[in-house]
């Protein structure tokens, strides 16, 4: 998929672990892993909003478009 998730990078920058983020935004670590590995088909606005709030970032910091990986 051309849409890439840069959650790992942001998490590293913020010094936060995946399970901590999962706890804060209220999703399972399994679902967060699906999101991080790019296996997710869609992301809810509410989830995106919670991630942005928890990581103090913009949606564009998490999602990027890379046409070459299509």
């Amino acid at each position, binding site marked *: 998929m051309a849409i890439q998730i840069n959650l790992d990078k942001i998490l590293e920058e913020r010094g936060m672990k995946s399970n901590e983020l999962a706890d804060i935004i209220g*999703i399972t670590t399994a*679902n967060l892993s*699906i999101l991080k590995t790019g296996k*997710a*088909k*869609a*992301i809810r606005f509410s989830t995106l909003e919670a991630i942005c709030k928890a990581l103090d970032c913009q949606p564009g910091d998490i999602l990027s478009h890379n046409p070459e990986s299509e």
Partner: protein
Amino acid sequence: MKPHPYLKLIISISFYLLLLKFILSIGLYLWILFGGRIKLRSINFLDQKLVEESFGATMIISTFELVLTGLFAYSLYVLKKLVEEFEKEKLYTPKQIAGLKLAGSMIISITILEWFIDFFTRAVAESRLSLGIYFDNPGNPWLLIATGLFFIYLSKVFKNSAELKRDKDLTI
């Protein structure tokens, strides 16, 4: 969502009765094959009588009967397995999709084969080709074919639903 309890019961009863008929048909078939003679009921409805057909005709009719009973039993087995799959309360599984498609195809195949056998039996037994295809109830075979097509359509609906469910499960 569990299926109606009578559904599995009725399908199971029909399946085991057909299985019994199939086993008896095999026995009868072997008996005829090794020289046994049987009298078949005349298809002349105005003058119902038992007539003794030639060995060849009896064999052909018995083979048709055996094949048809076997296919009926198998299609009921498929339906039985399908209902058992629904009982697991997990919908849109690949087994259900394949089962619905197979059940539909079997219903259509059996109905068409039954047409052919009915026509051929008449031709073999009493050389009445001019009678053509006869149905006890003219609407019945079409209803069965429609049911078969409906099962195939349902299989496609399930396949589409499975994709939607997968998308929903992968929405975070």
